[in-house]
């Protein structure tokens, strides 16, 4: 297989991953690394570098659709980015120190967790919505446009959310993914931000977080232009197409199938990590 064919195949694979990721709302970034490492036999460090770049591209690209809707909370995003960027920097530094086998196993566990979360769905926040002192002094409370005008909301549990975001950033920097699953945990469950606000705000944050670790990866020589090129172009094209096809409804069957793929990839990553093949 020469470079032309290799580029074509990784482009097609990345397009599919981006398409399914956008269509199901699970994000394509999480399957790029296993796809490159397990299917194409790419060293996991190059795979992570290429994946990080594509994560930045999808996050920035998706902003077009989100910005118009006015759901994102810029202060909340910026505040939490302090946690995610420090985490991402740490994660990227860790990636250079620990063995690729351990990275593969951690990756596999994150995949299993993502698969679990995606099937379980999003539990609605049923608790009483009382203002939080810290959120109020940081001016994190805001409102989003609903069908009957602006819907005000409060943000809660800032320390817990902040800590979880640090973890999300670390995983993002270590594994080259967007870490959407942990972000959902932090914003939807801990901070009880309305679902639409948390989705758009975390999308904004993902690009900044990934940029913090991408700088480290670039300087360390983990980002190969020949590999990142088809992956980035493919993921951008795929996720653009995916978000156009179905904007609001997310097909349940497709979601379950994609979650199944993520589950299998998770086991494969753990197995290959333990046996030392990655």
């Amino acid at each position, binding site marked *: *297989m*020469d*470079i*032309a064919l*290799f*580029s074509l195949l990784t482009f097609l694979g990345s397009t599919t991953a981006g398409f399914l990721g956008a269509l199901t709302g699970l994000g394509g970034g999480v399957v790029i690394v296993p796809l*490159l490492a397990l299917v*194409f*036999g*790419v*060293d996991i*460090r*190059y795979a992570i570098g290429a994946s990080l*770049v594509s994560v*930045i*591209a999808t996050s*920035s*690209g998706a*902003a*077009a659709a*989100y*910005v*118009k809707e*006015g759901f*994102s909370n*810029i202060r909340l995003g*910026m*505040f939490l*980015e*302090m946690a995610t*960027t*420090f985490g991402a*920097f740490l994660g*990227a530094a860790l990636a250079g120190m620990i063995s690729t086998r351990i990275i593969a196993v951690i990756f596999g566990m994150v995949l299993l967790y993502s698969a679990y979360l995606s099937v379980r769905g999003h539990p609605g926040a049923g608790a009483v919505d009382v203002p939080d002192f810290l959120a109020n002094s*940081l*001016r994190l409370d805001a409102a989003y446009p609903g069908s009957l005008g602006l819907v005000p909301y409060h943000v809660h549990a800032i320390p817990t959310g902040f800590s979880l975001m640090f973890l999300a950033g670390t995983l993002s920097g270590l594994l080259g993914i967007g870490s959407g699953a942990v972000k959902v945990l932090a914003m939807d469950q801990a901070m009880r931000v309305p679902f639409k606000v948390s989705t758009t705000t975390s999308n904004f944050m993902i*690009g*900044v977080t*990934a*940029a*913090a*670790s991408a*700088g*480290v990866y*670039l*300087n*360390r*020589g*983990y*980002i*190969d*232009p*020949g*590999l*990142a*090129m*088809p992956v*980035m*172009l493919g993921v*951008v094209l795929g996720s653009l197409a995916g978000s156009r096809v179905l904007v609001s409804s997310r097909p349940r069957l497709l979601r379950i199938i994609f979650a199944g793929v993520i589950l299998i990839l998770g086991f494969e990553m753990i197995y290959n990590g333990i046996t030392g093949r990655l």
Partner: protein
Amino acid sequence: MDDKKPAISDARIDELIGGLLIVGVVVSSLIVLIGAGLYLKRHGTQLPNYHVFYGEPSGLRSVSGIIKEASSFSGRGIIQFGLLLLIATPVMRVAFAVVAFIIQRDRIYVGVTLIVLSVLLFSLAGGGR
């Protein structure tokens, strides 16, 4: 925190930032595409070797090295320059937010965004290597 109406609204900031991100992605994708054409034309028939990790040469690792490589019309250099631009897009977004918060006279968030910006610039400059 004052009660005066800010000179620039949050919604307007959102809009401008959104536009900035789109321009960043489109421009960097086009540059990557141009580099891809050159790269595939020159190296398309060679064999890929990603199974073993070597790391990139120094010319493709640092901001100054990449600019030098790209200006010599190397396909890989041009792709890397496009990728560098893509990585810089969120950084520019944060820098833009710093300015917006300064205009809004929101001191807490000027501080917050400056911290985030410092981490990003430190990382890009090779601080984590």
